[in-house]
């Protein structure tokens, strides 16, 4: 066989498995039957309509949004000084701190979720929403620290020193000189962290509780009882939503440089 033929076969295989599943979900969400089938029979938009009428989805969406926004902001506010310290200074225990801050990205999510659950149970009656918010902040920190570190490493230290020598305090020069220069890195880590939180299952699985569920968890719950194309329709919406955000970010700041 010719080299190009082999290559072509590989490309087709890779794309089939990468995009195929999404395509099936996407097409199935337009079916008119009560059970999800592929290929879909008939054409209907009623499942899309139903997504917006199911109360548990609507509540879960708002919870997910609140948690994702809150934990992303917190991870940015906590992660930026950490990244700054790791990049700009040399101090004892630096490697350890670096490892600790990247550990949530390495340790399996289920383990983190379980550990956090045990921890919050000890603090009896800890509010579920706050628990989720803290848990998500912890798993987002590695992303913000890493992405902001990498843009700080590309920032010429002399620029900060120039500002300081001209009379700006370190804190002031951070806000007027460094921050504008690393803003693309911050936007990139915001988007990355937001999507990570919004889509998270393993940690949320343990930390959700009575009355509070995130969207992915409620989707799991829904699927245990129903097998209509509503989930497919919701999935399609989420896929389109994510693709639009990432595409927009790529156009504006070239997010792929940071991921």
């Amino acid at each position, binding site marked *: 066989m010719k080299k190009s033929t082999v290559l072509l076969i590989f490309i087709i295989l890779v794309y089939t498995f990468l995009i195929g599943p999404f395509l099936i979900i996407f097409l199935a969400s337009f079916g008119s039957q009560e059970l999800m089938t592929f290929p879909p029979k008939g054409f209907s938009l009623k499942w899309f309509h139903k997504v917006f009428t199911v109360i548990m989805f609507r509540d879960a969406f708002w919870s997910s949004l609140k948690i994702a926004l809150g934990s992303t902001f917190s991870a940015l506010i906590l992660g930026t000084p950490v990244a700054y310290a790791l990049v700009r200074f040399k101090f004892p225990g630096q490697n350890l701190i670096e490892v600790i801050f990247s550990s949530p990205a390495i340790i399996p999510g289920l383990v983190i979720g379980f550990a956090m659950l045990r921890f919050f149970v000890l603090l009896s009656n800890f509010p579920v929403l706050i628990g989720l918010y803290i848990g998500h902040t912890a798993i987002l920190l590695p992303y913000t620290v890493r992405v902001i570190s990498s843009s700080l490493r590309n920032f010429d230290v*002399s*620029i900060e020193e*120039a500002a300081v*020598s001209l*009379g700006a305090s370190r804190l*002031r020069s951070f806000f007027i000189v460094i921050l504008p220069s690393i803003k693309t890195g911050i936007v990139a880590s915001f988007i990355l962290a937001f999507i990570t939180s919004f889509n998270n299952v393993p940690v949320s699985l343990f930390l959700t509780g009575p009355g509070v569920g995130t969207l992915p968890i409620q989707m799991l719950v829904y699927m245990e009882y129903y097998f209509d194309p509503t989930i497919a329709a919701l999935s399609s919406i989420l896929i389109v939503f994510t693709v639009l955000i990432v595409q927009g970010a790529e156009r504006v700041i070239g997010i792929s440089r940071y991921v």
Partner: protein
Amino acid sequence: MSYLELRNIEAWYQKGKPVLKDFSLFLEKGELLSILGPSGCGKTTTLRTIAGFMAPAAGSIIINGKDYTGKPPNKRNIGLVFQSYALFPHFTVFNNIAFGLRMRKTPGEVIKKKVYNLIEMVGLSGLDARLPGQLSGGQRQRVALARAIVIEPNLLLLDEPLSNLDARLRINMRTELRRLQKKIGISMIYVTHDQAEALSLSDRIIVLRNGRIEQEGTPEEIYSHPASPFVANFMGFENSFNTEVISVGTKNIVLKAGSGLVKTEYSAGIARADKVSAFFRPDEVTLSAKKTDNAVPGIVKAVTFQGSSTQYFVETELGEFSVIIYEKRPSFSTQPVYLEFPEGSIIVKKGRLE
């Protein structure tokens, strides 16, 4: 008392490995001092210590009679110019230059006047609304210079400011910098590894090696009378050989040169039978096809035509040397020649080279 005094400074990044040890430096008001040395000699550390970005482990920094040793860098009123220009990329030329004045809460009208005055002085008229990304390297360095000067600093520190520019621009900027420094009478410390830059700019030069001052003096002194083999090499005495002193007269010293002898100027502290190292510059010796006085025989191994000059590699009993002759076209090919040492072209230092 001098305007700036560094007294017995010790500085290190890693404990036990001092970059500067018992380092002292003095600068008069309005003086331009160059610190010259190879990378890793401690010249940038010296600047960072004066600017306050590095706290010395010992010693003190005095400016105009006041102790600055523990002062934070933003309270020192010292202008800095970096090799990378370090302009604020999101600020226009005007705002870059105005930055220091804004930090000092100078009234807007005064800022405008001072900034435009400097923009004109450094030749950037009409570019005030540009961003650094829209400027050439030379223009960026002018902005950096103006930004540091506009705050009327106690002291201006420049860290290899011209090394990112191309050769011709570098020479123009050198002259301009010197003119500007004279005009405003600012005290300046200029760090460089380029001897030509240090020689052409400075009132005084310090040659630094491994955190110690190897030699200090005016450009002329250092150029003609390097105090050590290291400085000699740095000042363009690229050729060297080990030898011994045959005899010492009142005006001359006679050195053994392979199977023959060469004569050179008297130098204090050199005695008969001393083991010495001899140095000479490629362009201070000549070549001749016939045997002449004060010459050693050799063979031209390679010829490189360089335009206004030609470089020859000559192999002799003493080693292989580089010789540069200013001529329109090469006058020797690979052939036997005599390497001739005119009066005073060889300098002699005690001790042998490795």
